[in-house]
């Protein structure tokens, strides 16, 4: 439940605070205590996000008998906003990135006698790494901040309380559709980004490096494995879940003042970036061990 998330964070922070008070002064001591306190708060924060995510999964798997159509309506709107509306900006960024990477690779690799590795470079840099990550950054900038702001404003104007008073569960009506919408949109946008970026790469390969379409496609498909596609999907799912949980959490953390809204939105954005990179490391590093 949502209140539980905040209770977890506040409870552990209070515990850390008490520990700080009990342990007394000393510069180094205080420093260690500060680090300890921040670490505990960090774990509590992650636990709160995990609780939010698990609650959303439970709501998805066992939706209540009431409000399904309304929840579906919110979900559809979220997919339209996060996924469909983001297609133009994603296309432009993906196309430009593909052009840049193949331009760099196409001019540098032949000097090292590795001109045939253009396909591998595209797969490794775009499909494995930059595609999912830049898509996540686009989604954070467009939709993550929008969610945090919207929920923050809803909290200040007591719309969240009004929903509760109408017997409409926040987790089911507000959080779950936004999470599911964001995860689905992130997954689709990531694959879309990869395809457009590869196409951008082909434009350069064709025009500048005179690599024919068939040779380019063959080079890319030879370098592409099922693992790459699986990793892209896992990253898309992980980034989507992380961004949605962080932005919902910070939006609902707003209490009573409009000035808290931009503060929480900024936190949501920064923490989303950090968490996406953390998820990226957790998913990528084991692959190379």
């Amino acid at each position, binding site marked *: *439940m949502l209140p539980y998330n905040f209770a977890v964070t506040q409870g552990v922070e209070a515990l850390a605070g008490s520990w700080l008070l009990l342990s007394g002064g000393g510069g180094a001591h205080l420093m260690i205590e500060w680090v300890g306190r921040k670490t505990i708060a960090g774990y509590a924060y992650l636990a709160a996000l995990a609780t939010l995510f698990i609650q959303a999964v439970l709501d998805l798997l066992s939706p209540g008998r*009431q409000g399904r*159509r*309304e929840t579906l309506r919110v979900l559809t709107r979220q997919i339209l906003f996060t996924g469909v509306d983001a297609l133009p900006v994603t296309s432009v960024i993906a196309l430009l990135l593909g052009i840049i990477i193949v331009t760099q690779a196409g001019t540098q690799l032949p000097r090292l006698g590795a001109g045939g590795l253009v396909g591998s470079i595209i797969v490794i840099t775009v499909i494995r790494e930059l595609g999912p990550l830049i898509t996540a950054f686009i989604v954070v900038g467009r939709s993550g901040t929008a969610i945090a702001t919207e929920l923050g404003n809803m909290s200040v104007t*007591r*719309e969240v*309380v009004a929903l*509760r*008073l109408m*017997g409409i569960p926040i987790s089911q009506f507000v959080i779950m559709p936004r999470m599911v919408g964001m995860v689905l949109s992130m997954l689709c946008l990531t694959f879309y980004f990869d395809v457009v970026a590869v196409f951008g790469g082909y434009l350069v390969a064709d025009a500048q490096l005179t690599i024919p379409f068939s040779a380019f496609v063959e080079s890319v498909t030879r370098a592409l494995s099922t693992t790459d596609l699986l990793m892209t999907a896992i990253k898309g799912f992980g980034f989507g879940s992380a961004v949605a949980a962080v932005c919902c959490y910070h939006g609902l953390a707003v209490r009573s003042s409009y000035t808290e809204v931009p503060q929480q939105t900024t936190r949501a954005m920064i923490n989303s970036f950090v968490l996406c990179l953390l998820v990226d490391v957790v998913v990528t590093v084991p692959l190379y061990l």
Partner: protein
Amino acid sequence: MSEAAIRFTQVRASLAGSPSHLQLDLQIEAGQFVVLVGPSRSGKSLAIEMAAGLVPPQSGKVMVLGQDWNAVEGADDGPVRLRVGTVLQQPGLLSNMTLFNNVLLPLRYHCGAMSDGEREQAVMAQLEPLGLLSLRDRFPAELHQGEIRRGAIARSLMLEPEVLLLDDPVAGLDADMVLVLKQYVDARRQQRPLTVVAALRSFSPFIEGADRLVVLQEGRVVADGSLESVGSTVPSALRRYVE
């Protein structure tokens, strides 16, 4: 004697922004129209929020329709929640929905079996007597405070609750609209049993329809009874709240 719709049993809770505590031992019978009146920070809004299950008391018990709010948590309070309509000081109309869709929302969420036509008819039946029909397609940002409040009251009555809790229902309403609201609440009470508890911070014609007045000061009940009886028992400093 009829069953109590709301019962505050030895309730104690701290009042924000005041050193005093709210101390309430109050029973409101089913079908009664009770007005809590008194100066700011006297505990009226807190009593409404406790009756709505939003704020737990520090001690004591708040029972609404036989349900102890302390015994239910979060989403599990649904069945009781639907029998209680509440409008707080900030009415909380959803800003991304028109007035019509705001009033329709409880029906759309909880009454999936109703046809669209039936729902529209039900919403219109709420908006019309409150003078909101011409504003149905406006968003909350395009409405005046009083219109928002009336819209929220219409929304809170969509599911035919047994208890209606109103915090400052006349705020932002002109004199005519206060009378319209009073007539609307009276009509609803005549149609079916409805317990109404309203918190007011000054005297208003809305009070005249009340069966009972509870005057609060610094968290304590200083007078309780009908409008006529309270007029003679209330401390002189608070007389302007009831006359």
